[in-house]
């Protein structure tokens, strides 16, 4: 099932990663058989903004239940768009899934409104923390439970659980979230999303603008959430190093396509990944990187010229 | 820049200066010149009735005022709900002369160009003063500061004996080289004056946007903190913007006073401020040609609806208030529909039409 999108002719693979992909794809296919229950299935979606700007060109990915999946890529690769497509938040940006489908927990959520997706149990933590600046920390967290219908008892219990989980927040419940530090804001955002008791949590660049130590703390938290609350996690990152450490499985995006995927362990050792996403080069790597950049530039240029 | 500026069909900019030219091609310039010529010539070819001449004068007065409003609301992004008051300041500058010197004093009847400029300057001074809170206030709070000015203006005019407590202060007909204007040529004469003023203001604003200050304006509109960081002074820029808006409004006010031959506070109420805003938005905020489209569209619409209401009134039984209801209803509906389906105003249609013809005769 992984082969299909990769083999489609329009998905021109950018560079020499083609062979790797095919190889890994096959391997995954076999591996995946063992824990084959997919919570989220994104099948070959294409997203356009404003009816003309095509951002995603056939993205497929799967998130299995209970796992941590990372989606890596550079700026403008389409990671955030993918996440928004899943969580039904394309509409405010005038975006639309033109082709393909997304399934979450068995139900089709292609082009469905965000509220519905949250009710089904997939919650996103938006990029750049986006806490409600003028609400207190406690109110921020409470807002997360808006879609829940399972009684105030349970909600209150969950609320307490959040403070156990992020003890730092329990000290500042009455502070306005806008005045909290970056790390605290990220915790608020995660706690807020968790209040919806999601089956799957989607994190959009949780490391953005945070100090390395804080990034580590946040990712430790993410792991703990995954472990203790049995929440599946899909994390979008630019910081490939830490993302690959934490996740079980990872996808790499490039210009609106998945170009590479595999278990995180393997990707960590993949020379291309090392070179382009972790900044580690081995013999002659710089030159290769340079050439790659040029070819990519040319490709973009051609695309711009070619588009109507 | 293409070598042949008659047949240029596309963007051939090679420097930033190119992009800031007043006319991109000779064709543009020729068309505009022809159009202006036409505007000057048509009244000589056939005559309109006084009513429609007055309507056209009215549109042109509004155009001058909207050019001002567009500087402050469109280019600088500050909502002004007190624009009619600035127009009123201009009108009442003329009125104060009339009040102190008598309504047919030589300054009013002969030196009227001076009066118009003077009104503009008074408007600018008041604009700058009202703009002062812009140093600190933002968004709607600023809008309400302008609203306050509107209310204070209305009250002052209505209260002070000097302004005849809001009752009409008359202004007599002006003199031209041919002597005192008669009733018949009154509106025609002011049509030409207004046309000259509108053309001058149009070029002034077009040029203004090419200057450093013009760029400051849009920078401050888009993000005043970033503009601050770039070394612009957002507060002062806003105050200038209000001053400029006040200038155009003042000129419009003086013209209004002369065309209507009298100044009364009923022409400068909050309701007019709101109508001015509607004109600016329907025309297209932040565009120069929107300043022309907006007043033309709104005033024409008003006339059309009036006719429609009259016809409806003849068909429908007079016991039913439908004809009365039709006027505000359709007026509001047009504004709402415009904003819902074309929030960038008529100027956007103009832009689309232009971009279609820009590459003519060649196509993509």
């Amino acid at each position, binding site marked *: 099932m992984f082969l299909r999108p990769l083999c489609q002719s329009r998905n021109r693979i950018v560079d020499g990663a083609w062979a790797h992909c095919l190889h890994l794809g096959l391997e995954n296919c076999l591996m995946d058989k063992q824990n084959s229950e997919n919570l989220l299935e994104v099948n070959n979606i294409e997203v356009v903004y404003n009816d003309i700007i095509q951002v995603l060109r056939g993205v497929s990915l799967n998130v299995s239940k209970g796992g941590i999946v990372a989606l890596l890529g550079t700026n403008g690769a389409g990671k955030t768009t993918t996440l928004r497509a899943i969580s039904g938040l394309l509409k405010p940006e005038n975006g639309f899934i033109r082709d393909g489908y997304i399934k979450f927990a068995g139900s089709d959520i292609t082009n469905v409104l965000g509220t519905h997706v949250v009710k089904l149990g997939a919650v996103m933590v*938006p990029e750049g923390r986006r806490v409600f600046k003028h609400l207190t920390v406690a109110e921020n967290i*409470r807002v997360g439970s808006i879609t829940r219908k399972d009684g105030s008892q349970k909600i209150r219990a969950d609320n307490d659980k959040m403070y156990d989980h992020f003890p730092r927040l329990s000290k500042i419940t009455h502070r306005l979230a806008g005045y909290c530090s970056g790390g605290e804001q990220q915790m608020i955002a995660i706690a807020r999303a968790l209040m919806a008791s999601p089956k799957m949590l989607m994190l959009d660049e949780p490391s953005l603008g945070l100090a390395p130590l804080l990034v580590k703390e946040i990712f430790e938290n993410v792991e703990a959430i995954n472990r203790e609350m049995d929440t599946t996690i899909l994390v979008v990152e630019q910081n490939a190093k830490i993302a690959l450490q934490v996740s079980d499985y990872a996808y790499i995006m490039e210009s609106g396509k998945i170009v590479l995927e595999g278990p995180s362990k393997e990707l960590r050792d993949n020379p291309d990944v090392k070179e382009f996403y972790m900044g580690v080069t081995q013999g002659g790597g710089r030159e290769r990187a340079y050439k790659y950049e040029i070819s990519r530039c040319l490709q973009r240029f051609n695309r711009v010229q070619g588009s109507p | 820049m293409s070598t042949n500026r008659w047949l240029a069909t596309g963007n051939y900019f090679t420097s930033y200066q190119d992009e800031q030219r007043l006319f991109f091609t000779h064709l543009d310039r020729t068309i505009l010149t022809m159009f202006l010529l036409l505007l000057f010539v048509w009244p000589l070819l056939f005559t309109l009735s006084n009513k429609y001449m007055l309507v056209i004068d009215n549109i042109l007065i509004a155009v001058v005022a909207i050019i001002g409003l567009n500087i402050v609301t469109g280019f600088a992004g500050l909502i002004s709900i007190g624009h009619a008051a600035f127009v009123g300041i201009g009108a009442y500058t003329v009125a104060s002369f009339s009040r102190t010197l008598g309504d047919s004093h030589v300054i009013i009847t002969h030196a009227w160009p001076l009066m118009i400029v003077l009104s503009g300057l008074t408007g600018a001074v008041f604009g700058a003063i009202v703009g002062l809170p812009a140093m600190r206030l933002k968004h709607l709070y600023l809008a309400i500061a302008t609203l306050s000015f509107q209310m204070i203006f209305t009250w002052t005019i209505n209260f002070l004996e000097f302004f005849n407590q809001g009752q009409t202060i008359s202004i007599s007909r002006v003199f031209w080289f041919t002597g005192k204007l008669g009733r018949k040529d009154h509106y025609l004469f002011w049509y030409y004056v207004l046309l000259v003023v509108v053309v001058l203001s149009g070029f002034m604003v077009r040029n203004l946007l090419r200057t450093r200050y013009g760029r400051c304006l849009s920078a401050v509109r888009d993000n005043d903190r970033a503009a601050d960081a770039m070394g612009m002074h957002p507060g002062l820029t806003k105050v200038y913007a209000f001053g400029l808006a006040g200038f155009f409004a003042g000129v419009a006010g003086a013209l209004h006073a002369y065309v209507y031959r009298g100044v009364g506070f009923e022409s400068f109420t909050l309701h007019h401020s709101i109508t001015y805003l509607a004109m600016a938005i329907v025309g297209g905020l932040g565009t120069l040609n929107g300043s022309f489209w907006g007043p033309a569209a709104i005033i024409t619409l008003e006339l059309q609806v009036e006719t429609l209401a009259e016809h409806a009134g003849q068909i429908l039984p007079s016991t039913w208030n439908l004809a009365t209801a039709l006027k505000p209803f359709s007026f509001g509906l047009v504004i709402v529909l415009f904003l819902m389906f074309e*929030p960038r105003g008529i100027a956007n249609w103009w832009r689309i039409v232009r971009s279609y013809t820009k590459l003519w005769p060649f196509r993509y």
Partner: protein
Amino acid sequence: MSYFFQLVVSGIVVGSIYALAALGFVLIYKSSKVLNIAHGQIIAAGAFIAYALTGWVGIPIYISFLLSMVITFFLAMSVERIFLRRLIGEPIISVIMVTIGLMSIIDGLIFLTPFGSVNFSFPQFLPQELISFGGVSISWTQLVGVIVTVLMIGGFSWFFKKSTVGISMRAVSDDQFASMSVGISVPRVFGLAWATAGLSAAAAGGIIGNITGLNFETLQAFGITVFPVVILGGLDSILGAVVAGIIMGVIQQFASGYLDGNWGLNGTAEVLPYIILLIILLFKPHGLFGIHEIERV
């Protein structure tokens, strides 16, 4: 001295009615950052519906007041639904202009009814006697007005502070995208904001209509009259609306009580609120209780 106290009491009474009228602005602004210029028209509509129900249909007056609140609730909600939902995401000035257009549309609709040009008055349903203590007196109408205001404002403050829906309405005003990401339906919140504003407008309409009579011009002018109150209070603060309302009410009473008739002054109550508003805004640019935009770059 009793003159002074009478002024204060009248000021508070008038001010609390201002607060109720201002509440509608605050409710809408709080969630959608839109200033609804057509609020005066909705106030008038609320009053007219109440009259139509009691005067023409013959429903008891108390019930018709409640019913008019319910009807206005749904009316305002559908106004949002029809006209404003499409504009989510457009610049604020366009949305404000839409409310200006809306003003004309509602004007037109009201001119279709007799209310556009005929004056009516509510049947009297409260005791005629004055309530006076120590030389200071207010009428039952005014007292009921104050009580309704206190109830409504208390209720709404509780709603925004404590209930999850209320908090999420504030969240939407803060960051629409983030609130969508946690599953808040932003259009529904806007609809709710308009609906509650409609409800408060109907209450205000009922009270003002009882005091001034049902004259369309007078009622709809309240939309503009309470602007200084809304801004002075800080646009998004319910408490601010109350405090500013009372301040403005007392100022107006003092103005007409002490300034008018002396030194040749007249009608100062009309203009003084705006002057004071300007002065206060220079020192407190966000009104008395308005939220300071937290801008962390």
